[in-house]
C-alpha cells in the first residue's frame, strides 16, 4: 500500500485497511515495546495511540511523511513508548504530587513533542557527517575517552572543542527554523 492509501484508510475509518496496517507494522512495534520493559498490553495501547496521533495530526496539518508510512508509524510508536517510559520513571522518582492531565490533553502534548523531536532529528541529519557522528556519540552519553578512541582524536580536549563547535552549529540551525519558536516552550 502507498502512504496515501494507509492515511485514507485511517481517515475514512476503514477497518479492512486498518487491519492491513496491523498486519504490516504491529509486530515490529510489539517487539520493540517488549524488548524495552513493556508487555503485550502496552504494545497494543501504544499502537492505537500512534495511529490516532498520526490521523489527527494529518487532519489538522496535512503534513508530509518523508519516509514510507510503515517506517514512520514504527518511529511514532517507538517514540510514544519512550515517552511512556519517561513518564513512568518520573512517577517513580518524583516525590512531589504529579498533576493528572486529561487524556486528550496528553495526546495533544504528545503530538507537539513528536513534532519537536522531528525538528531536532531532521536538523541533526543536515549538519556535516563528522559532526553528526560525534554528536550522536555525545548525546548517547558515550564517555569522552571512548569518543576520542572512536573518532581518532589526540585528546579529550580536542574532542570537547569539536563537540562544542558541532553543537553550536546544530543549535543555530534548530533555532533558525521557524517551527522552533512554537515548539520551544511546550
Amino acid at each position: 500500500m502507498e502512504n496515501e492509501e494507509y492515511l485514507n484508510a485511517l481517515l475514512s475509518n476503514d477497518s479492512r485497511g486498518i487491519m492491513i496496517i496491523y498486519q504490516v507494522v504491529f509486530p515490529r512495534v510489539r517487539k520493540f515495546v517488549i524488548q524495552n520493559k513493556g508487555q503485550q498490553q502496552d504494545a497494543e495501547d501504544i499502537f492505537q495511540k500512534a495511529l490516532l496521533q498520526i490521523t489527527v495530526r494529518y487532519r489538522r496539518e496535512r503534513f508530509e511523511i518523508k519516509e514510507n508510512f510503515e517506517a514512520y508509524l514504527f518511529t511514532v510508536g517507538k517514540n510514544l513508548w519512550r515517552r511512556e517510559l519517561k513518564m513512568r520513571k518520573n512517577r517513580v522518582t518524583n516525590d512531589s504530587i504529579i498533576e493528572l492531565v486529561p487524556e486528550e490533553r496528553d495526546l495533544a502534548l504528545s503530538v507537539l513533542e513528536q513534532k519537536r523531536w522531528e525538528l531536532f532529528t531532521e536538523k541533526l541529519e543536515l549538519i556535516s557527517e563528522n559532526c553528526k557522528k560525534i554528536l550522536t556519540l555525545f548525546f548517547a552519553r558515550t564517555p569522552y575517552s571512548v569518543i576520542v578512541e572512536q573518532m581518532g582524536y589526540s585528546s579529550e580536549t580536542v574532542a570537547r572543542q569539536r563537540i562544542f563547535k558541532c553543537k553550536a552549529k546544530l543549535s543555530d540551525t534548530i533555532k533558525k527554523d521557524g517551527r522552533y519558536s512554537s515548539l520551544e516552550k511546550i
Partner: protein
Amino acid sequence: MSLEDNMLIENFLNDSLSEGDKRKMIARMKDDVAFRKKVFFEQQLFSNLDNEDWDLSKNPAVSDEIKEYEQLFKDTPSQELKATLATVNKKYQKKQNKGTTPWLLYAGVAVIVFFIGLTVFLQTNNQNSPQELYAVYFDVSEVPSLLHRGSDGKRSLINAQKLFEDKKYDQALHILTNELIGSEKNKAAIYLYTGISQMELGMFDAAAITFDTLIHSKLIDAPKGIWYKALLFLKMGEREKTREMLQRITQSSDNYKFKEATELLESL
C-alpha cells in the same frame, strides 16, 4: 556561549557537579535569564537526541495549538476512529493467538521436556550444591557497567571497571571504596561492584553490609542489591537465607531477576 559554560552546563545536566557548584549554578540560573535559556536548550538537545530519553513537555501553560489538538482528539471522527481501532485490535490479536496456539503448545512441551532433562541432569551430576549453583547464576558480565550513561569516563572508574573485569578485586575495591565516599553519580553500580568484590574476596560480612546499604537506599537500582545478596548467601552455603532473599524477588514478576530467582528457588 563559552567552552567553560558549555562544560559547566554539561556537568550540571549529567548530575556530576559537587553540591556547592550545583547551588552556584542554580543561583546563576535564577538571576541570569540568558544563561537559564542556554541550560534549558541544552537539556532539550539531550532529551531529543538521546535515543533512550524523551523530551516531555514541562510548560503548564496551554497554547492555542494544544487547545486545538485537544478538541480534535475529542471530536466525533476521533472517537469513531478510537472505537474502530479497538475493534480491529481485538480481532487482530484474536487471530494472532489462534495462529500461534500450536507453536505455544510445542514450545510449552519443549520447555517441560527441557526442564525434566535439566533436573535429571543436575541430579545425576550432583550439581545443586550452593557453590555450584552460585557458579551457574553468578555472571560478572551481567553487572551493570560503571561507565554507562552519564559517565564522562572518570579515570578512576575506568580503572576500577578494568580491574574488576580482570578479577583483580582487591585493587578494584580500593578505588571503589574511595568512590563510594565522594561520588553521587552512578552510586548503585559502585555499591554493586564494591559488594561483589568483597564477596569474591571472601569478605562476607562487609559484602552483606554493602548490599544492605544499597537495598535500603532510595536509588532506582536499589532492588538489584537483593539478587546479589541472595548470591552472597548462596556462596556462603546459607540455603535458608538464600531462599528468603529469593522469595522477596519472586513476589512480583516485575522484580529484577524474577525468572532466575524462580529457577534458583526450585533448584534449592
